[in-house]
């Protein structure tokens, strides 16, 4: 417990440092927000084009699809806010030997490298996702209970951790195979699967996306809470997946550190 509090304090401290840092580059905020709005606008047009041809795709109507889009947006943005930069930077840190100082500190090294930088623009950007969901719920006329909100947030968190685990594992493959920038592309491509309803995929692929590469657990599950249709069994399953992925990450990290070469400048 004492340790837990200490780690929370460290997280806040690093977030504070990043805020001080980011204040120096304020204009980034606006441009980033602008980009995200354009991106979302494009997604809307896509959805609009698709639903001008039909009423329902994989059993999701247009506003349910918007909820899925919004959920996906929140998860991706929050993942980017806390972990994305850290994971990409990790590749160079491993290659160029910049992990040295992390390793000599009396603190969990994975924690340090994973949370060092916070990208504040992404936090503000995630708000757009909440707005989309709110609007879609209003259009659908569904009322949401506080329990559902809590479950939704829990599964969003779970989704972020799954994305983190996958990206982190890809980054630290650098320990074994040198430069791994193309692996990030793999990450990007895999996250494609979080965008659409799982029902559109064939059975075999759907099973893969629920287990080995649980992209449907990431976004479909939380969206289902709001759309209706998430059973409690699935809830436990989602959390089990999240926890086991985190455990794999920790194990892989400790294996990787044994191969760390600490290149000198």
């Amino acid at each position, binding site marked *: 417990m004492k340790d837990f509090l200490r780690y929370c304090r460290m997280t806040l401290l690093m977030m504070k440092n990043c805020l001080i840092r980011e204040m120096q580059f304020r204009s980034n905020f606006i441009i980033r927000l602008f*980009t995200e709005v354009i991106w979302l606008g494009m997604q809307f047009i896509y959805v609009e084009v698709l639903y001008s041809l*039909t*009423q329902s*795709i994989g059993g999701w109507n247009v506003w349910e699809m918007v909820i899925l889009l919004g959920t996906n947006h929140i998860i991706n943005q929050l993942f980017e806010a806390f972990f994305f930069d850290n994971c990409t930077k990790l590749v160079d840190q491993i290659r160029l030997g910049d992990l040295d100082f992390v390793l000599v500190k009396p603190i969990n090294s994975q924690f340090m490298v994973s949370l060092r930088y916070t990208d504040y623009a992404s936090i503000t950007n995630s708000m757009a996702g909440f707005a989309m969901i709110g609007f879609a719920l209003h259009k659908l006329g569904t009322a949401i209970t506080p329990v559902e909100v809590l479950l939704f947030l829990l599964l969003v968190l779970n989704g972020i951790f799954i994305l983190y685990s996958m990206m982190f594992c890809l980054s630290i493959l650098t320990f074994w195979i040198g430069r791994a920038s193309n692996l990030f*592309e793999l990450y990007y*491509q895999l996250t494609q699967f979080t*965008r659409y309803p799982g029902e*559109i995929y064939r059975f075999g692929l759907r099973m893969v996306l629920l287990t080995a590469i649980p992209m449907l657990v990431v976004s479909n599950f939380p969206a289902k809470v709001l759309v209706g249709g998430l059973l409690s069994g699935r809830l436990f399953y989602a959390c089990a997946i999240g926890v086991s992925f985190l455990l794999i990450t920790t194990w892989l990290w400790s294996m990787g550190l044994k191969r760390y070469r600490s290149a000198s400048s």
Partner: protein
Amino acid sequence: MIEALLKGTSAWKYWVILSTRTQEDMAYRANYMVGALFRFLPLLTTIYLWYAVFNSPGYAWSGRMGKMTLPDIVSYYAIMFVARGFSSMPGMTRDISLDIKDGLLNRYLIRPISYFWYQTMYRLAHKLIFWLAALITFPPVFYLIREYLKHSPTVLEWVGFFISLIIAFWTGVLFSFLIGCLAFWFLEISTFLFVIMTMEFFLSGHLIPLNLMPSAIVHYVQWLPFAYEGYWPCMILIGKVQPDQMGTVLGIGFLWVGIFFVLVKLCWKWGTQRYSAVGG
């Protein structure tokens, strides 16, 4: 053999650049093959998504947009990979802007070498590797979706397609170079680049075939240079460009390439003047 041919000519140094770059890329083999293969994943999701649309209970093709069948759509997205394989220049703008910002440009300015051609060769090397890997990765993918590739192009369409790929490559290189040159005038352009990339993704027809958008938009968007980075090569090969339109489509493409060439020359001239005046 190529080496023997080029040695002594002015193209020799560019060949050296090209081959050095190629070696650098190959050194990271696992990385490369993984990247090349998984790039097709979006095609898979897109096929599933459109399949679901075309097979949903209430499906009806809306009258407001050009008629496309499921095979048309799948072929479009598949050919998009080929087209973007020619036109997308990942990292080029960033590299150029960093060279300018960090003063690394001096390295090139003092050497008897044209920075523009250096960058072009560098990208060509990239593309060469890309297509080397594509020889292994593309055929199985196209084989898997063979039942959707219904249209067999005419000779004219094949010729038009190859010409449009040349346009696609040059549009990509020239546009990326131009945007990179913005660093001569603006300090921080990395976030701006992201906006441009997003727009490019949309306006090239990469996300949605441009002809599916409201006709008021299509009318203008299809004649922008971005459409030549993806949309037009795809439309030509799936047989959506009539023989009498072919000339116009390709002609406007070449016009854009010409305009971009002039703009690159001008930007470079003004930019380097400013660069040496400010001192990098």
